């Protein structure tokens, strides 16, 4: 059935969203690392990376060409991610003698892969049309999209857990144990929240959820009307949105939920023993997970790629409207990524028992109440 409508060009176009999504994610991650340090600098009144740039006394032009560019630093620090990458790749890839070598090497892949897989079900833009071929800007519109998000994020626990155990160090083990407990606890809330979102939209497909947020039922007109902001999921499910954002922090192990790392107590937590690119993969995984969570939050609660005035732009030029929708989703995701950075550099870390208490005694009951209320309303 699937293969009936397939011809060579359709297969080719199917690759477009794949390349677009994964290319964009990989290109943005180094910039996020730079941005994180700059945001930290702005918030905490520090300096941040300001040396490794193109021009200036310490710039690339000076080092390679001997050209100082007039002694003024321009965009200093922008090439810091490049310098970091060179450092990470050229460092010794050390495996502790007593470590479980196979699982030690496998764990970083589990940190990197699941957040990538989340993007599979996220619709990144409106359909593009090329000479009669419609190209949906989604890697795979799975009927069980929301469950896919949940199952993939539960796989992320393996990265920290295996990494923590395989290192054979007490700091790593404690970090891994904490991470597992935290992720399992907050996944329950996340599942309950997604359940109430599912009840509200009556669909598990993220594509359909975005479409539902693009329109609303106008009682005056007596039909469905296009709407930009008024039918965003956050207005229908405000508590679910709040709970989901909190759980996203916990799932990504970001401050104030960075128990698994917890530098002050556990050195580096589950990645204490990791160095070189294996550490680099854990590090990259965290930023891809931030992007993935931003994409899921914007899709479920903030209209996804949809924007006010989409209908009128689409009437004039569908492809232009689709390109704008790509940029709109990108902007929404960046807002949530910046929000995560802002919180990280503003709030102090929870104590471990506080994390557990918040998860089990506050968030899960709230999510259950939200679920029951949603069920009653949608009866």
């Amino acid at each position, binding site marked *: 059935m699937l293969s009936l409508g*397939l011809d060579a060009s359709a297969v080719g176009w199917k690759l477009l969203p794949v390349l677009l999504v994964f290319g964009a994610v990989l290109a943005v991650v180094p910039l996020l690392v730079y941005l994180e340090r700059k945001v930290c600098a702005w918030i905490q009144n520090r300096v941040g990376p300001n040396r490794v740039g193109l021009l200036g006394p310490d710039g690339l032009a000076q080092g390679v060409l001997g050209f100082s560019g007039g002694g003024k630093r321009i965009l200093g620090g922008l090439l810091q991610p490049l310098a970091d990458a060179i450092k990470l790749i050229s460092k010794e890839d050390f495996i502790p003698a007593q470590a479980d070598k196979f699982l030690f090497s496998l764990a970083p892949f589990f940190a990197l892969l699941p957040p990538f897989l989340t993007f599979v079900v996220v619709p990144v833009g409106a359909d593009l049309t090329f000479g009669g071929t419609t190209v949906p800007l989604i890697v795979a519109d799975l*009927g*069980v999209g929301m*469950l896919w998000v949940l199952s993939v994020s*539960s796989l992320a626990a393996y990265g920290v857990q*295996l990494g*923590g155990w395989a290192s054979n160090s007490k700091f790593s*083990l404690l970090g891994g144990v904490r991470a*597992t407990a935290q992720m399992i606890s907050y996944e329950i809330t996340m599942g309950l929240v997604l359940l109430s979102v599912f009840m509200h939209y009556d669909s598990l497909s993220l594509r359909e959820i975005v479409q539902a947020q693009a329109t609303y039922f106008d009682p005056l007109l007596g039909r469905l009307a296009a709407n930009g902001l008024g039918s965003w999921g956050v207005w229908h499910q405000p508590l679910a949105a709040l709970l989901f954002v909190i759980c996203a922090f916990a799932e990504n192990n970001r401050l104030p939920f960075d128990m698994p790392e917890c530098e002050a107590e556990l050195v580096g937590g589950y990645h204490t023993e990791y160095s070189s690119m294996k550490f680099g993969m854990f590090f990259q995984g965290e930023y891809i997970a931030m992007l993935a969570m931003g994409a899921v939050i914007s899709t479920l609660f903030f209209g996804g790629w949809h924007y006010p005035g989409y209908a009128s732009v689409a009437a004039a030029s569908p492809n232009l409207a689709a390109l704008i929708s790509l940029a709109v989703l990108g902007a929404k995701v960046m807002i949530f990524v910046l929000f995560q950075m802002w919180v990280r550099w503003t709030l102090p870390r929870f104590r471990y028992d506080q994390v557990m208490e918040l998860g089990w005694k506050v968030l899960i009951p709230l999510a259950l109440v939200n679920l029951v209320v949603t069920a009653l309303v949608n009866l």
Partner: protein
Amino acid sequence: MVRAMHSMLATLLFWIVVLMTVTAATFVVVARNILHAAFALAVAFLGVAGIYIFLHADFLAAVQLIVYVGGIIVLVMFAIMFSAHTQEGTVEPRRTWLALGGGALVAGVVLAATIMLINRLQVPLAEANAHADAAYRTTASAAPGEIALGHVLLGEYLLPFEVASILILAALVGAVAIVRKETR
């Protein structure tokens, strides 16, 4: 051409998934390191989820991932980390004739039951599920699997469904009772 390639690729992928599942399952039994065995079990469950997808049972595959791969095995590994032998991480092999015979008997019964079940099907499972999918897609947008399953679980089989949850509750209470006895 493309269609033939598509089905060939699907067949190849199917055998890769099957090979992965069987290899991992064998490793669960023979592994000396208990955490390796647990991880291999997770890989085997992942393979089973893949087989569900080949049977057009997407919902079941997602639930398999969430419950078994992402939940139960993570908790099993969690428990192993807390157990006393984490440092050496090995288990003593005690392969007695009784254990081997018992295991072979259970495996044989399960295999015979599965073959009998498959022989009783009039239409191959994958085909039946694909037809149900197609029939449902024309009338409504949601994936059909979970809706049919929901109606069956909360309709015809409501009592067994609820009894199963009481069983899980009993296990939970039992676990708490055991832990409390040790600390007293």
